[in-house]
């Protein structure tokens, strides 16, 4: 139980200290991560946007280069005759623009005047009417016309480009361009460290990618699909970039830019791991801080909890010791805080408890021969100097049973003890009531002292009343006893005079007693008293003469006194006994 409470406290402290450090750290980390993420996104948006635009410009440059070259072939008007010069120009163009696979030149009427090819046979002045050819029509209306991308033999992407001159008479040039050669451009585009770019045509077929083998399968829906998905994701994102997965399933961030003219889309992509590298680094930093903070708070919690629970343990131990009665136990805590104060307070309490214990023991001792009230009184005065030996006026009361010795010889010990028990119980109550001091008892005899150790106002009167009450009480018992057939009487004797009183004995065995002739006198009077009699010396009788009805019993010879001394009795009403006299 004690151990559990200790652990509980430790855990509470641990939790509190941990939270005190970890929560601010975590909040800071989350905020930093969130803002870092937003900043990084914004930056990425910007960077990828610029990259996409730049990539689109480069792809556009590839197209521009070709259209510029083609533009030279539509500068001069056609004549009716063969044009050897243009053929030379066209063949020269092949050398300058390796992507051009074939060229066709048309005059103002849309007739084919020249066709040159790298692979196929050339045609010169075939004059085939191609005025309705979409390329020718398109170039005539828009000056530069781009056809749809077609896949040569299902593999190589080709683009038809048609250009017309600034006047109809110069005709139109139509070129087949092998887009495989954009590879030079696209593979040179680097986005970040490992990012790359690709190009899709309007329907979303792959026409340029650093991995040429993908481009050569661009006509396949399956090949282009993941790329279309990225383009569509960017489209859905409206502005900025989107995240998705590339062909190999790696997470990427991608942005797009249009290529005007052929209406293509350039997509730049960067692995998310690289794009978000800084934010990941920040997150790791935060995690590291959290970990360090957690460890720190753990250590702190341990140290502080130990600092708190250790004094508590000492206090607990001290309490246990005190409970076990070791009042001299002291707790040593030098923490300089409330714990030390508590320990000092505890020590003071232990000291006081020791005192109280001592006090209690003394009272217990006093109570053995003093009436509880007297004992308390002595106790309240704070010292037992009252018990020290001195000479004082006292009233000594003796009493004993008549015929007890012969009675005890004839009955069982149980009956003897039963009678004695009732007898002392009754007398004890009376003695307590009158705050008299019980000095000793032996057998059926009893000695009580009045006015010592605690002085009373009227010792003689108190003693007489005490004696009367004793008689009354015991006589009531005697009535009962007689009913049981016991022949027992009760007599009291009291005398006042100076006596030496004080504590006698050794170690823990102490008694309070009175020494002097008055004691002997009281004992003689008791011995001389018959059943139902209370005998007193003249000094007592004198003290109560007007307040209690006394009667002269004449002078009686008392052992130890040379002459007979005057003896007085006291009148009291007591239950009538069946048997008249004893002794």
């Amino acid at each position, binding site marked *: 139980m004690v151990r559990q409470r200790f652990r509980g406290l430790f855990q509470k402290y641990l939790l509190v200290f941990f939270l005190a450090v970890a929560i601010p750290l975590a909040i800071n980390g989350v905020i930093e991560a969130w803002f870092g993420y937003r900043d990084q996104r914004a930056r990425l948006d910007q960077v990828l946007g610029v990259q996409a635009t730049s990539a689109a410009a480069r792809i556009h440059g590839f197209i521009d280069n070709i259209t510029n070259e083609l533009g030279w072939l539509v500068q001069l008007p056609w004549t009716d005759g063969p044009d050897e010069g243009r*053929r030379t*120009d066209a063949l020269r163009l092949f050398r300058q623009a*390796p992507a051009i696979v074939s060229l066709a030149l048309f005059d103002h009427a849309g007739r084919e005047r020249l066709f040159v090819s790298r692979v196929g046979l050339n045609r010169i002045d075939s004059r085939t009417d191609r005025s309705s050819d979409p390329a020718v029509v398109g170039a005539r209306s828009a000056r530069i016309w781009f056809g749809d991308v077609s896949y040569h033999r299902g593999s190589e992407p080709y683009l038809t480009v048609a250009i017309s001159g600034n006047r109809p008479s110069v005709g139109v040039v139509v070129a087949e361009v092998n887009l495989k050669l954009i590879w030079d451009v696209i593979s040179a585009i680097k986005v970040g460290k490992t990012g790359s770019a690709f190009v899709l045509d309007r329907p979303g077929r792959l026409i340029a990618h650093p*991995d040429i083998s993908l481009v*050569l*399968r661009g006509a396949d829906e399956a090949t282009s699909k993941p790329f279309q998905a990225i383009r569509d994701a960017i489209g859905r994102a409206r502005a900025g970039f989107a995240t998705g997965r590339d062909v190999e399933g790696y997470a990427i961030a991608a942005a797009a830019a249009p290529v005007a003219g052929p209406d293509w889309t350039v997509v730049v992509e960067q692995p998310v791991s690289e794009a978000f590298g800084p934010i990941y680094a920040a997150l790791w930093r935060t995690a590291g801080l959290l970990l360090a903070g957690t460890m720190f708070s753990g250590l702190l919690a341990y140290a502080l909890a130990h600092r708190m629970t250790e004094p508590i343990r000492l206090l607990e131990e001290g309490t246990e010791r005190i409970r076990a009665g070791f009042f001299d136990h002291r707790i040593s805590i030098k923490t300089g805080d409330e714990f030390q104060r508590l320990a000092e307070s505890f020590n003071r309490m232990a000291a006081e408890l020791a005192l109280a214990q001592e006090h209690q023991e003394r009272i217990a001792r006093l109570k053995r021969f003093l009436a509880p009230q007297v004992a308390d009184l002595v106790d309240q005065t704070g010292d037992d100097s009252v018990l020290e030996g001195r000479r004082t006026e006292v009233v000594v009361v003796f009493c004993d049973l008549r015929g007890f010795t012969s009675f005890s010889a004839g009955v069982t010990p149980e009956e003897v003890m039963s009678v004695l028990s009732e007898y002392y119980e009754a007398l004890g109550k009376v003695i307590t009531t009158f705050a008299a001091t019980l000095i000793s008892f032996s057998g059926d005899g009893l000695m009580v002292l009045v006015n010592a150790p605690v002085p009373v106002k009227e010792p003689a009167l108190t003693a007489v009343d005490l004696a009367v009450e004793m008689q009354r009480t015991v006589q009531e018992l005697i009535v009962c006893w007689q009913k049981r057939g016991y022949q027992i009487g009760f007599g009291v004797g009291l005398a006042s005079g100076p006596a030496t009183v004080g504590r006698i004995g050794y170690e823990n065995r102490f008694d309070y007693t009175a020494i002097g002739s008055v004691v002997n006198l009281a004992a003689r009077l008791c011995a001389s008293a018959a059943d139902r009699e209370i005998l007193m010396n003249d000094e007592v009788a004198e003290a109560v003469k007007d307040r209690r009805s006394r009667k002269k019993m004449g002078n009686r010879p008392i052992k130890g006194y040379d002459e007979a001394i005057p003896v007085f009795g006291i009148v009291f009403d007591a239950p009538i006994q069946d048997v008249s006299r004893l002794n």
Partner: protein
Amino acid sequence: MGDQAMPVGANMASTGFKALGHARTFDRIRRRDFLALLGGAAAWTHQAGAQRSTMPVIGYLCPESPVPFASRLKAFHDGLGETGYIVGRNVAIEYQWADGQYKKLPALAADLAARNVDLIVAPGGAPVALAAKASAANKTIVFEMGGDPVQLGVVDSLSRPGGNITGVSSLSVEVSRKRLEFMHELLPTAATLAVVANPTSPTANSQLENLRSAADFLGVGLQILQASNEQEFEPVFSVTAQKSAGGLVFTSDPYFAFRSGQLAELAQRYRVPAITQSRDFPVAGGLMSYGGDFAQSHRRAGVYAGRILNGEKPSNLPVQLVTKVEFLVNLKAAKLLGLEFSPSLISGADEVIE
């Protein structure tokens, strides 16, 4: 990484393309080296030995002997290097040389297939690819040829080759009619032009068919000559010279291409204007050549070999067509023959040898 493998300032167009897997492969290799270094000097020799034994092996089926093939082989090594493979360091090559005896190719291919090679490279023409496909069907094959692999039945389609074979085609076969056209342009008055075909070539018939229709279009007669070995070369030139059939047009055929020096020497001796597919011909003193850039095609074959070694499936690698078809003219040879190139021919030439 591919960029690093290239000389600084190299023309990207001539270096072919870059595989997407380069960076990762290179990383892997570097990591492997790094781990080996970590192993310490004592472990190094063991590591190197272990590495050699686990090195991938390429079976290289070559129709010719090492000397005429040296330039092609260098281009192939360059392509491998682009994907991070250096021969002798992390890849080994086992060669089979047919030394010009194309009949031996199937047996050599079977021999390679029986060995523990990871990949068979079949460069130098359709016969090699067909032999490899026929005799080593269980192996992955990367071919390099001038013909149309679809027409030859080597692959199903260019974009989806299917099976475990892919490669590069240099367009040389398809452009043989252009050679006829160039010769016709040079000799517009010649009523008949001679065409030399190799009857053993799998593309011979289709080329001849192509040439006949081209001749019809150009309005010129054709004289078909045949040569399938070196002994038949001289008669071809002597007949052309005697019949004064004007020019001599060689069909695309590796056997011819690898004997450009010999053909150039014969052309000079018999004073016959001739055009072949290989740039080696005008370089050696021949008149003209028109054909795909073999450096590009062999280099790309090397890249494909590397990508397949990196774990890519051949069926996912489309057959590549070479983008560069080059036209070379030798003005000195023309002068010796008393001929003059028209301005359009000169301006259309990619290279003019003076």
